[in-house]
C-alpha cells in the first residue's frame, strides 16, 4: 500500500516534525494564556503578522536573525494590544482576538503592498531563512538521524520550549501566580498579586511563542510570505491545547497529531484523491480530536460519579 509506505518512511517522520513546529509554538502560547485564564484567539493573527515582519526585516537587513527579532517584536506589540483591550478596557477577549485576526489578515496585505507592491506574495523581497542544524552524532543513527537531524533551528527551539513552559508553570513563582490567577483571580488579588499584570505577562509570553511559529512559517517552512499563509494554524493550536488538557506535554502530543495530519495531507498530494479532500485532512482531524477530547471530559466526570 502506498499510504503505508509513505507513513513509514523516515522522510515522513521528518515531515511530521516540520509541520508540527508552528502549531506547537502557538499551542504552547495557548497553554500559557489559558492557564492565566485568558483565551488567546489572536494566535492566528499574531503568527501571520510575525511571518510578514520576519520576511520584511530579514530582507532589509540581510539577516534572518534580525528578521526573527522583528517577528517577535511584532508579536509582542500585537499581544500588548490584545492585553490592553481585554484587560484594561475589558473587551471580551474572544471578540478582541477576532478583531486582531481581522486586522492582521487585512493589515498584512496592506503592509505587503506598501513594501513589496504585491498583494499576494513577497517574492520581490530577498528575504532570508533561519539556518538548518545537523545534529552531530544523532545524524549518524539510522532512522532516528534522518527524522530528527537537519531541521530548522526553530524546530529544536520548539521542542525545548515544551520543557521551558513546563518548568515555568510548575516550578517558578511566576508560574504559580499564573496558575492562581487563572483558577481564582480573586484569591490572587487578595494577596496583592496584580491579576492584570500577571495576565499581561502571560499574554505577552503567549504572543512571543506564537511569533516564533510565524517566523518559522516564512523563514523556515518556506522562504517567503504569502497572504493568510497561517491557514488556521493558530486555531488548530487552540484545539491542540484543549486536547492536551492545557498541560505542556499533553499539548506537545496533540500538536504532533496535527503535525501528522498535516504531513499526511502534504504527502498524499501524489495520490489519486481530489486534492481538495486531502487539504481538508488537518481540519477534519482537528474537529475529531476536539470532539474526542471534549467527550472524554464529559464521560470522565460521569465515570467517577458512577463508582
Amino acid at each position, binding site marked *: 500500500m502506498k499510504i503505508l509506505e509513505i507513513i513509514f518512511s523516515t522522510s515522513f517522520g521528518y515531515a511530521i516534525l516540520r509541520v508540527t513546529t508552528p502549531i506547537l509554538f502557538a499551542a504552547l502560547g495557548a497553554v500559557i494564556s489559558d492557564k492565566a485564564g485568558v483565551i488567546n484567539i489572536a494566535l492566528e493573527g499574531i503568527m501571520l503578522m510575525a511571518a510578514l515582519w520576519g520576511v520584511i526585516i530579514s530582507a532589509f537587513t540581510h539577516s534572518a536573525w534580525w528578521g526573527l527579532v522583528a517577528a517577535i517584536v511584532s508579536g509582542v506589540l500585537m499581544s500588548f494590544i490584545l492585553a490592553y483591550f481585554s484587560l484594561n478596557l475589558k473587551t471580551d477577549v474572544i471578540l478582541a482576538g477576532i478583531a486582531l485576526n481581522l486586522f492582521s489578515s487585512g493589515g498584512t496585505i496592506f503592509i505587503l503592498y506598501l513594501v513589496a507592491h504585491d498583494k499576494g506574495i513577497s517574492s520581490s523581497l530577498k528575504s532570508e531563512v533561519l539556518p538548518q542544524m545537523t545534529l552531530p552524532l544523532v545524524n549518524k543513527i539510522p532512522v532516528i538521524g534522518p527524522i530528527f537531524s537537519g531541521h530548522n533551528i526553530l524546530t529544536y527551539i520548539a521542542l525545548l520550549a515544551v520543557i521551558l513552559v513546563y*518548568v515555568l508553570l510548575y*516550578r*517558578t*513563582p511566576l508560574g*504559580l*501566580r499564573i*496558575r*492562581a490567577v487563572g*483558577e*481564582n483571580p*480573586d*484569591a*490572587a*488579588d*487578595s*494577596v*496583592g*498579586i*496584580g491579576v492584570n499584570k500577571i495576565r499581561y505577562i502571560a499574554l505577552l509570553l503567549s504572543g512571543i511563542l506564537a511569533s516564533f511559529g510565524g517566523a518559522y512559517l516564512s523563514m523556515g517552512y518556506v522562504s517567503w510570505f504569502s497572504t493568510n499563509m497561517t491557514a488556521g494554524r493558530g486555531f488548530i493550536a487552540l484545539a491542540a491545547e484543549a486536547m492536551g488538557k492545557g498541560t505542556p506535554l499533553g499539548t506537545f502530543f496533540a500538536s504532533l497529531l496535527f503535525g501528522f495530519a498535516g504531513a499526511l495531507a502534504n504527502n498524499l498530494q501524489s495520490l489519486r484523491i481530489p486534492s481538495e479532500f486531502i487539504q481538508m485532512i488537518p481540519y477534519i482531524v482537528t474537529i475529531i480530536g476536539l470532539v474526542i477530547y471534549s467527550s472524554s471530559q464529559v464521560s470522565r*466526570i460521569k465515570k*467517577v*460519579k*458512577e*463508582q
Partner: protein
Amino acid sequence: MKEILKMQNITKVYPNGIVANKRVNFSVNEGEIHALVGENGAGKTTLMKILFGLEQPEEGAIYLNGKKVSINSPFIAIKNGIGMVHQHFMLVPSLTVAENIVLGIEPRKRGFIDFKKAVEITEELAQKYNLKVDAKAVVRDLPVGMKQKVEILKALLRGAKILILDEPTAVLTPQETEELFEELLRLKEKGHTIIFISHKLREVKQISDRVTIMRHGKNVGVFKTSEVTEQDISKLMVGRDVVLKIEKTQHKPGEVVLEVKNLTWINEWGKPTLKNVSFSVRSGEILGVAGVEGNGQRELVEIITGLRKFDKGDLLLDGKIINNLSIKERRELGISYIPEDRMVYGVAAEASIAENLIADRFEKREFNHGILTNIRKIASFSKYLIEEFKIQCSSFNQKVKMLSGGNIQKVVVAREFSSGPKLLIADQPTRGIDVGATELIHKKIIELRDRGTAVLLISADLNEIMELSDTLIVMFGGEIVAYFDDLSKVTEEELGTYMLGLKKQSYEEIRRVLYA
C-alpha cells in the same frame, strides 16, 4: 488608647447606582476587637473592601496611625499591615495549603520555588499562632473551618496588624465559633487589631470591645460594647424594634408530597457527598434542613430540582417516581425553587423584571398570542406581582441588575411563589438581604404552607431555621444525622453538636422522617 485607623467621609456609589456607603466615618483603636454590625446590605463589606483596596470610594480619606494613605489595591493595603478574611474565601482550590499561604511571596531557591521552605514557613506560622493546619493538604479537600484558618494565616504571614474578618462565623457551627474566638483573643494579646463583622449580636457582645453600627450605608453609632445591650444595638441596626419571633400557627401536615429514598451521590473526585439519604416532606409542613454548608445540602437540592442527574436512589412526588424528569417537567408537576445564589441561578440580571417574572411560564398559552408573545398580558401580570411582593422599581421594564439585593430576591420569590407550587424548595431564601424583604419572604413562605404547600427549607442561619421550620433534619457528611419533630425541645447548642457530627441519632429515630 491610640487610634490606629480612621476612615473619614467615605462615599461609595456602585455602577448600578446603589449608594452603598454615605459619608461614613469609622475609627478603630489599636489592639481592640472592633465589631462592625448592621443588617444585610447595610454596606459593611463595601466599607471593608474600600479599606482593603478592592473598591475605590467616590469621596473620603483613610488615615493609618494619623497619616493619610491612599489605598488603591490590596497590594498597598497589605503593605500597610491590613489583612482581610473575606466572606467568600479567596483560596486557589487546586493548590496546597502551603502554596496558597506563600502565594505572591514565594520562597525561592535559584529562581525556582522552594516548596520545602514553603511548607516549613506554613508550619512555623501555624505553630506560632496555634492554628492547626496541614500544610501539604490540597485546599479543595478542606472543611470550611480549616479554610478559614488558612485565610487567617495568609493574612498573618503578610504581616497584618489590622485583621478584618467579614462574617467569619456565618459558615461555622457554635463549637467552631468558640474555637475561632479563642484564636482571636490570642491574636489580640499578641497586639493585633481586629475588625469583626457580624450581625449575630450575641457574638458581638461576647467578643468585641467596641461596636460600630451601620444602617442603610451610614454609620448610626459607635459604643463601648459593655455599655449597650443587644436590644439597643438591634434597634439601631434596623431603625425600629425588631420582631425576631415569626408569627405562625401550628402546622397541620397532610399527605406526603416529596419522598426521597436512599439517595447517594459521588462527586467528581470520587467522594460520596450524599449517603443513602431518605426523608419525606408533607403538605402543609416546613421541613428545615440544618447543617454546616458543604455537607450535601447543595447536591440534595440540585438533585430534587433536576439540575443534577443522579443514579442511585429514588425521588417520588405524590407517590410517582420523578427520577428522570426534566427540570421543566418537574416544574410542571408543581416544584418551585428559590436558589441559593440568586445572581447565578435566580435571575438574568441583564433582562427586564418582566422577563424574569415570566421565565418559568413564558410558553404557557396565556402569555402567547398565536406565535407572538402577549405583551399586554405579560405587563399586567408583572405589575400585579410587583405590587403583591412590594418590589421597589421604576417599571417592569427596568433591568434586574439595577435593583438592590433584597428586591432582586423578591423578583425570584414572586416568580416561584406565584406558580402555586405543591413543593417549594427554599435554599437560603433570605441570605444577604435586608430585614424588610426578609420579613416579607418569611410571611409568604408561611402563607404557602398554610395553603398546603410542602416546603423544604435549607438555611445556614440557625435562627431562621429554628423560627420557620415545623420539623427539622440535620445533615452532616452527606447523611441525615438527626430528625426533630418538635423544635421547642431543641437548643441551638444541641443542634450544633449534630451539625459537627459529634452526635448522631439512632437509625429508628431518623427513620421517623419517612412518616411510614
